[in-house]
């Protein structure tokens, strides 16, 4: 038999205003409206959120874990980008 599943949606929830939406899981649903409904039932049964985003999983473009070194390692030796790199006289060090 041909397998025809409902598409997969990634669910992002803002737990309260002032905070970012955060990825919390995924659901299967036939369309955006039902994806929101299912996400609400599955991920916000205890006031976990005030806003939900659903995004079709196939529409997300992700970086490749194998590309981690070339993407992120170059930042490792740029410690001068951090405020702690600069040693200032004690009197003004809390600047």
């Amino acid at each position, binding site marked *: 038999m041909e*397998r*025809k*599943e*409902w598409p*997969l949606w*990634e669910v992002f929830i803002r737990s309260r205003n002032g905070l970012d939406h955060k*990825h*919390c*899981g*995924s*659901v*299967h649903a*036939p*369309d955006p409206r*039902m994806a929101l409904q299912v996400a609400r*039932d*599955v*991920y916000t*049964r*205890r006031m976990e959120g005030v806003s939900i985003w659903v995004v079709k*999983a*196939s*529409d*997300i*473009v*992700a*970086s*490749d*874990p*194998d*590309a981690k070194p070339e993407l992120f390692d170059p930042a490792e030796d740029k410690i001068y980008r951090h405020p702690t790199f600069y040693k200032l006289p004690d009197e003004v060090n809390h600047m």
Partner: protein
Amino acid sequence: MYTQALDIPQKDADERGPRAVESPAYEAEFNARIDAGEFIEPKDWMPEKYRKTLIRQISQHAHSEIVGMLPEGNWITRAPSLKRKAILLAKVQDEGGHGLYLYAAAETLGVSRDELYEALLSGKAKYSSIFNYPTLNWADIGVIGWLVDGAAIMNQIPLCKCSYGPYARAMIRVCKEESFHQRQGYDALLQMMKGTAGQREMVQDAVNRWWWPSIMMFGPHDKDSIHVESARWGIKRISNDDLRQKFVDATVKQAEVLGVTLPDPDLKWNAERGHYDFGAIDWDEFWSVVKGDGQCNVDRIAARRKAWDDGAWVREAALAFAEKQAAREKVAA
């Protein structure tokens, strides 16, 4: 949870060769990450056996949550008050939710939801054998919350630190909700124990029937356990016997406060070990239930099959409707 459907840009040439292959170098790197306490995420390289072990464990766990709705669902229409009915409905809905978190986590390993369901419905995949016991009276619902969910929590807390990120994250969510399950069960039993002699007898009867199956939930003794890699890979962090002992130690006091007797004449404090000793477990019963001869194995799977088959037209219709709407929007645009 990130998913297998994420679209990763293809690289033309990978100097390390295709990551799908098994290689001692990749495996050494992987083991080093496990040893360093790092989490493994869906698109990271992992040994095929790690992936398969996780699919088996996470999906069995998901199936257990879904089948676990059946014995409790049996009592929704018969709950003794509106308050208890509302609580039980919330609990059963949670079990469904837990199943869904876990299926989503399993799917990140490259298996589809339908494949997972089909494995359950065909009997290829197992679920926790505890759900093959019947719920005979209302006290069973309280005892399931107290003992069965209590045992589940013992099992599940270490999984919150499991090496596979999506599983660990799902388990954190599950554990938060399980605590409500255990407490509401104990609360329902406390209420019954304050009632008539007949109600107290019902509680004791339910405890007598559920105690041994509950401590079997931790699985075979460590010496008989076959999944050694699970410990090496940080999937299982505490052994079956250690978890079982922890559960027994924690439960004795709870039984005392409740005013029930745990049905084990050999259960007594061992000052030398600093733990409770308990009697021999009937492993023949355990294996016979696992292999399909429990009181409710046939009913449980028949109920799941019926739900799946009866829902087929809904799944198809919803998808057809979505496709039609999408086609219309395309024409209008």
